[in-house]
């Protein structure tokens, strides 16, 4: 009906143009004007002009058609200032892909000459570098505080589609509250109605019905009762629950029975911004597809990429292994999805930009159902961009200001327009990475709620090759598709369960299943994974079986080539054929089997493309065409994970920018599709490859750079630094530039090893006479008890063979230790545990310093942690400059930093952690590499320290780059973290020595209290102005809480405390109500929380069993009720200060440029130019 109406309208519009009465508009569409879209005048002008234009191009080509069109650019000139909203802190479901998209948007809008205002609370992003935008606000993203910015900056338009769900939700609120109309601000890219239509499940379904598309049977519920009625109406479990307006499906799930339904619906209603959940018929077992669609203001639509999920419906697409292009559709079926996507983007009214449409297809009869669409740039668009070379975010930004697709050149070919659909001649596989091990208590199962924390993408000429590459890039101990080392075989019943219920390990559990003799038909019945994928895996399984009976020396060149083209890594061959990695490598090279590097060109080789974007494969000729310039290879950080995320990508990108500026060619190597580093214009050349010794050596041999930078990518490149160093020393490779041999730049891998190896590290500290907490290692349970008692409790314990705080715990007594050695970690001579005296109530400091080749050291920043030592530094809020450390202690720390850096001969960055107990400093650890804090420090002190570090590595001195003095700002910057507990039901929310935060925010202001308040608000804490504060402190903290409680009382908060705490408070003269602990009776704090009386919770853990049970429950309740919760005394103190600051007057948003008026970063010019 809708379409016919258009048709009539078109007929009328076309009538006056007599000469063209013969031709009507193409299918479904009219021009922008006819559809009521923006640049009506421009569209009319274009068509009237083009009427006279005769096609100029003949057999002899003269000029390119899109260039001709460039003269009629419809760019918006009524807009001068555009505000871009970032995505805020990294959370599950919203990772650094929005730094990628936001940076792209800032870049292209600035290049177009617009004034760009940026708001993003996340300091670890490239886009918040002063210089990327004209005014950069790193602070809270609440509607109130955003309005402040709008009032001050008066942007003409807001581009809300680059900041994920956060950006869209903020824009929606601003629009609904009338703030946008108040200041006359236009939303570009997506309008309010289309945001609503896509997000509101009911509206979405109505829209789909209108255009004749089907959605799963479902209805929206606002209450549990409604949900139950709908479920009864659907009539069959399982039933899917999806909350409205949440990202990554937070609060959603699959219910197999009525109890689960009640549980999930209750959680979902709370999680949803609008207290709505969709109760939906399950399409479990259907195939899932995604299409990336782009539309311009002239109503041209293209499909950038089709993506097929290997995991069928039931697993969130972010948690699925996904493949581009779709493999199991005939053309008719694919075109059906394409037609639907186009109809949807039109119906939803996404006037321009990128969208993502997800659909399910019934494998038995091809029936299609629409699942959802996102009217914005998404994680999938980042993936599609990297997979095809079509830069969706960049294009979307241009389209938002009026360009049409045919007016923009294809970034890759530069000869053809962007109004085309990429064709690819390789297969792309994305594999998600999970962090369940960090959240004991939560089930490692996959549902419709996204739980992965990162992802790896790999390209190969076949799916098998790309899957194997992706799996070895995961850094989870896999060297390809197969069973991991030390795999514990599952008993039959568990095997069947794990095949049936999606989980992170299912992909290699399939291997065990094949070993156990399950047929593909049986596997299909269990997993519903399409037989096509299973058959491909089966082929790999057979090759693996064949390989296991072979010696690597027996392989012929032809066989080796074939095996490699199936994606097998040298490490796999070594494992299967009983050899070593380097031996396989030399045998393989002797057979002449080396990788070829192919280019990503968007057009399947149809047109010439010189885009410096390569992937390796074992197929025919190499296209990488390396130069003989001075080059440096930068190794990226691989997949995001907890403890290693966007911060390291920030460092890698900065290294690339500054070295390019210095005249080097930079070569980036990484396998994370979400990042800015894997943008093909960040570096001179990009190799989209896993970061393993084999793959890095392959790139080194192809490119022969002068230097390799390993210290910016976090643990990933560091782990292989020693092996690379050894390989390069054993077989020196002359650099292509003729300037010596290829070598690792910066701090030597040897020094890195000293810092990592406990014995060598102790030796160094003894030599330098630096104090550290007493401790040692234990190789048996008995020894552990002896050591712990010798040191005196509390002690910090951790296994020696893992990194990143994994299984690290603070133990308070022998019982704890007994539990630890019994349940958590086995102790044996092979795997010792490290036991250190725990510095109770100590303050922790983080120091970042820069060092040059001449041994000069400049401290870049000293941060004081808010949470006490013992909380992982990555989970602690911190302040720069320090707030409570005496000057003499800081002096000692500075002196120690310098001597350690000199002793380790650090070149580049070093991060050292100290603990201060009763004004006595101790060293905790040193990492001679870029740390997580680098971007925060850079933004707090106004110096691009990652850039400085890369220059130092290239041989410059601190003097040459003019950074010889520690900058101590007169303002205060506070970093706060965000934690993903809401995604892991069943896990406790207490902070501890194991890092679990996914992202961070920054607050910056003139004093600590205001900066801390900003950071808290930015991190999503709803700091209350009234209400009651619930206090429950362990005995040892009771004295500390008295002043805090008094302050809170003075601020007008009511106080409620558990019996013991209440007694202590009353004894000190602080009046308070008391409440029962859960085990004591009712009303208990849970009741008060649920009744909305309590607005802030401050509770520490006693660590005993009652707390593990009741305390955890209270903390989870607070979390689900969105009541801010503070679990440390230091945090309580800082929070109270923040509450006071808020009370004193409104917080003021200040752009970074005001703090650093002289900040000039010339390498950003280069980024804007490219």
């Amino acid at each position: 009906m809708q379409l016919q109406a258009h048709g009539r309208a078109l007929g009328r519009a076309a009538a006056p143009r007599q000469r063209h009465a013969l031709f009507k508009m193409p299918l479904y569409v009219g021009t922008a004007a006819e559809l009521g879209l923006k640049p009506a005048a421009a569209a009319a002008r274009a068509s009237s002009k083009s009427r006279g234009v005769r096609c100029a191009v003949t057999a002899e080509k003269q000029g390119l058609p899109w260039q001709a069109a460039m003269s009629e650019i419809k760019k918006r000139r009524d807009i001068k200032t555009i505000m871009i909203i970032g995505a805020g802190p990294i959370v599950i479901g919203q990772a650094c892909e929005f730094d990628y998209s936001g940076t792209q948007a800032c870049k292209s809008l600035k290049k177009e000459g617009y004034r760009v205002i940026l708001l993003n609370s996340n300091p670890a992003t490239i886009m918040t570098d002063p210089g990327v935008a004209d005014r950069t606000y790193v602070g809270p993203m609440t509607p109130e505080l955003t309005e402040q910015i709008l009032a001050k900056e008066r942007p003409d338009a807001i581009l809300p589609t680059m900041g994920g769900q956060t950006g869209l939700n903020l824009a929606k609120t601003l629009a609904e509250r009338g703030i946008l109309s108040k200041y006359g601000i236009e939303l570009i890219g997506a309008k309010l109605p289309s945001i609503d239509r896509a997000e509101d499940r009911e509206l979405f379904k109505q829209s789909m019905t209108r255009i004749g598309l089907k959605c799963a049977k479902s209805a929206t519920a606002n209450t549990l009762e409604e949900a139950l009625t709908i479920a009864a109406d659907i009539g069959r479990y399982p039933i899917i629950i999806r909350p409205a307006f949440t990202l990554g499906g937070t609060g959603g799930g699959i219910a197999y029975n009525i109890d689960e339904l009640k549980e999930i619906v209750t959680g979902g209603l709370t999680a949803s911004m609008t207290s709505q959940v969709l109760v939906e018929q399950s399409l479990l077992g259907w195939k899932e597809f995604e299409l990336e669609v782009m539309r311009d203001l002239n109503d041209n639509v293209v499909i950038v990429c089709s993506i097929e999920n290997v995991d069928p419906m039931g697993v969130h697409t972010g948690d699925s292994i996904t493949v581009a292009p779709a493999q199991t559709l005939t053309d008719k079926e694919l075109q059906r999805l394409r037609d639907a996507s186009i109809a949807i983007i039109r119906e939803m009214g996404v006037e321009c930009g990128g969208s993502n449409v997800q659909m399910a297809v019934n494998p038995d009869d091809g029936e299609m159902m629409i699942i959802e669409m996102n009217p914005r740039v998404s994680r999938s668009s980042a993936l599609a961009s990297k997979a095809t070379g079509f830069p969706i975010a960049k294009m979307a930004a241009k389209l938002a200001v009026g360009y049409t697709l045919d007016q923009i050149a294809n970034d890759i070919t530069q000869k053809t327009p962007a109004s085309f659909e990429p064709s690819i001649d390789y297969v792309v596989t994305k594999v998600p990475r999970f962090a369940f091990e960090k959240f004991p208590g939560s089930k490692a199962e996959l549902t419709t709620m996204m739980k992965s924390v990162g992802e790896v993408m790999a390209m190969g000429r076949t799916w098998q090759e790309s899957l194997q590459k992706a799996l070895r890039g995961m850094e989870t101990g896999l060297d390809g598709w197969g069973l991991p080392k030390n795999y514990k075989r599952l008993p039959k019943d568990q095997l069947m369960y794990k095949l049936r219920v999606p989980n992170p390990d299912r992909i290699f559990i399939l291997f065990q299943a094949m070993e156990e003799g399950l047929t593909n038909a049986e596997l299909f019945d269990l997993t519903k994974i399409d037989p096509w994928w299973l058959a491909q895996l089966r082929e790999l399984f057979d090759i693996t079986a064949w390989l296991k009976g072979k010696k690597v020396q027996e392989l012929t060149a032809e066989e080796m080539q074939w095996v490699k083209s199936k994606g097998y890594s040298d490490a796999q061959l070594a494992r299967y054929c009983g050899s070593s990695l380097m031996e396989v490598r030399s045998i393989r090279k002797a057979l002449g089997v080396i990788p070829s590097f192919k280019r990503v060109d968007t057009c399947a080789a149809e047109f010439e493309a010189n885009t410096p974007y390569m992937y390796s494969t074992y197929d025919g000729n190499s296209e990488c065409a390396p130069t003989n310039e001075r080059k440096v290879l930068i190794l990226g950080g691989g997949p995001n994970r907890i403890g290693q995320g966007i911060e390291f990508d920030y460092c890698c990108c900065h290294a690339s920018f500054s070295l390019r500026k210095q005249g080097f060619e930079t070569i980036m190597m990484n396998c994370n599709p979400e990042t800015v580093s894997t943008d093909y214009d960040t570096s001179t050349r990009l190799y989209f490859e896993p970061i393993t010794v084999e793959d890095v050596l392959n790139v080194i041999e192809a490119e022969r750079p002068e230097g390799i930078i390993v210290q910016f990518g976090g643990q990933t490149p560091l782990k292989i630094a020693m092996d690379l160093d050894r390989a390069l020393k054993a077989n020196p490779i002359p650099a292509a530039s003729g300037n010596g041999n290829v070598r690792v730049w910066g701090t030597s891998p040897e020094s890195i090893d000293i810092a990592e190896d406990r014995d060598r590290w102790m030796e160094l500290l003894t030599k330098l006479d630096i104090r550290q907490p007493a401790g040692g290692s234990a190789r048996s349970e008995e020894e552990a008890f002896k050591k712990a008692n010798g040191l005196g409790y509390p002690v910090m314990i951790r296994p020696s063979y893992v990194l990143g705080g994994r299984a690290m715990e603070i133990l308070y007594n022998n019982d704890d230790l007994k539990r630890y050695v019994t349940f958590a970690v086995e102790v044996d001579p092979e795997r010792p545990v490290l036991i250190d005296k725990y510095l109770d109530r100590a303050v922790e400091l983080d120091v970042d310093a820069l060092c040059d080749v001449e041994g000069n050291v400049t401290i870049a920043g000293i941060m004081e942690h808010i949470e006490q030592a013992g909380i992982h530094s990555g989970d602690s809020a911190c302040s720069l400059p320090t707030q409570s450390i005496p000057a003499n202690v800081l002096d000692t720390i500075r002196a120690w930093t310098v001597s350690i850096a000199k002793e380790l001969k650090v070149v580049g960055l070093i991060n050292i952690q100290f603990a201060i107990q009763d004004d006595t400093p101790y060293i905790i650890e040193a990492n001679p590499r870029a740390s997580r804090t680098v971007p925060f420090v850079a933004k707090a002190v106004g110096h691009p320290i990652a850039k400085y570090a890369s220059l130092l590595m290239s041989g410059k001195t601190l003097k040459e780059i003019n950074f010889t003095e520690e900058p101590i700002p007169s303002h205060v910057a506070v970093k706060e973290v965000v934690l993903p507990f809401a995604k892991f039901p069943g896990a406790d929310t207490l902070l501890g020595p194991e890092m679990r935060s996914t992202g961070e925010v920054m607050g910056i202001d003139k004093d600590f209290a205001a900066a801390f308040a900003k950071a808290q608000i930015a991190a999503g804490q709803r700091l209350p102005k009234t209400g009651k504060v619930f206090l429950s402190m362990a005995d040892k903290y009771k004295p500390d809480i008295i002043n805090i409680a008094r302050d809170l009382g003075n601020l007008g908060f009511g106080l409620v405390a558990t019996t013991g705490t209440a007694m202590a408070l009353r004894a000190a003269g602080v009046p308070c109500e008391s409440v029962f602990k859960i085990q004591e009776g009712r009303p208990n704090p849970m009741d008060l929380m649920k009744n909305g009386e309590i607005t802030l919770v401050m509770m520490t853990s006693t660590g005993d069993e009652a707390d593990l049970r009741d305390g955890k429950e209270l903390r989870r309740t607070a979390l689900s009720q969105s009541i801010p919760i503070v679990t440390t005394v230091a945090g309580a103190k800082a929070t109270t200060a923040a509450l006071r600051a808020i009370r004193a007057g409104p917080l003021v948003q200040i752009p970074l440029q005001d703090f650093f008026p002289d900040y000039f970063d010339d390498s950003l010019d280069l980024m804007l130019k490219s």
Partner: protein
Amino acid sequence: MQQLQTRQCSGRTAASYGVADLHAPCSRQVVTPPLVARVSGRRVASGAAPAFRSTGGRARSVAVRASASASPFPKKDARLVLEDGSVWHATAFGARGTEIGEVVFNTSLTGYQEIMTDPSYKGQFVAFTCPHIGNVGINNEDMESSKCHLGAIIVRDLSCVVSNYRSKMSLDEYCKKENVIGLANLDTRALTKVLRETGCLVGVVTTDSSKSDAELVQMAKSWTIVGKDLLSVVSCTEPYEWGKGTSDEWEFNPRVKAHKEHFHVVAYDFGIKTNILRRLASYGCRITVVPATYPANEVMKMNPDGIFFSNGPGDPSAAPYAVDNAKFILGKKPVFGICMGHQVLGQAFGGKTFKLKFGHHGGNHPIRYVPTGRVEISAQNHNFAVDPATLPEGVEVTHVNLNDGTCAGMVYPSKKAMTIQYHPEASPGPHDADICFEQFVDMMKAERAAAH
């Protein structure tokens, strides 16, 4: 001989049982050389029958690689030799023998079946840049003509399994049935780059090891597609009627329902794609399909509402009779030409055609519809193009290929003629240009209205 038997066995198995999970009976063998011929037809049959039920007939394995003799990996037992002297080794599937043709690449990601059955590919070998081909097998509905016209297909990776609910046979089986040589495990990207740089090349594919490379190069050099009349080869020999539109299940354009009037169209068959007939029929046309050489005056005697000139293979200049017929008809009735029909009408208008360097073959080319500035994504398959500079006054170029600026569509209002160089019927490819059929129908409608 042994190889051949295995192939036949597996072929028959898959055809008669619907599914052949080759791996099923073997997976317990831990050390099994993969891909060797290790299954007898009978074992597959007995092992596969239950599998058929549990997978609903969607999955079927193909035994191409399993036939590759003692070596565990597929043997490169076939060659593609190009006229530039290059020799490409590959694994054979489908039919055996030697074949000569022009090598073209196609960048479509889907629709190999439609491409293979498109008569326009007569005399050509198609190399697919999409690496996995054969994934969805061959079904009965997606045929663009009754047989496979191209001489050989060249793929990077022949799918070892077929997975699609509509599939009736595997690609390998189909190639055998249609006597088409298949080449797998060939770097089609490298081949595409050669074709892109040197232009279309004549090539010879062979599974015959007795022929020397030099001999084959000579063969390739001595052949050309230019000037060959392939239209009459692929055309029907007797006129026939067609009235079946796109089935309800696959109809994608709600506007076809608005067309209530019926028209009679005579379609010149230069190798017409079935989907053109279906689309015309969906818009209410009854079509009389006539052979390429059918006299124009006979056509006029049928007094149709419009005349259609179809797509077809090869060089338009090689079919002067088609141009003459078009000239005779022009101005008398509304006419519409697609692809070859566009080129024939271009010549009938008085224009000239020329050969493109490597042609357009794919499903992602942007076309600007000049009157509105709108961009359509189109399905393309042609090697020749009309030179707009040679067209007489009164002909307008309405469609432009944005990749290289070539003429992609014309309208000659005074002669009631419209033409489209690419494939509005899609199949395979996007449906963006379906409007063209409606425009033709509207032309006929206007003509009918004017006559009354």
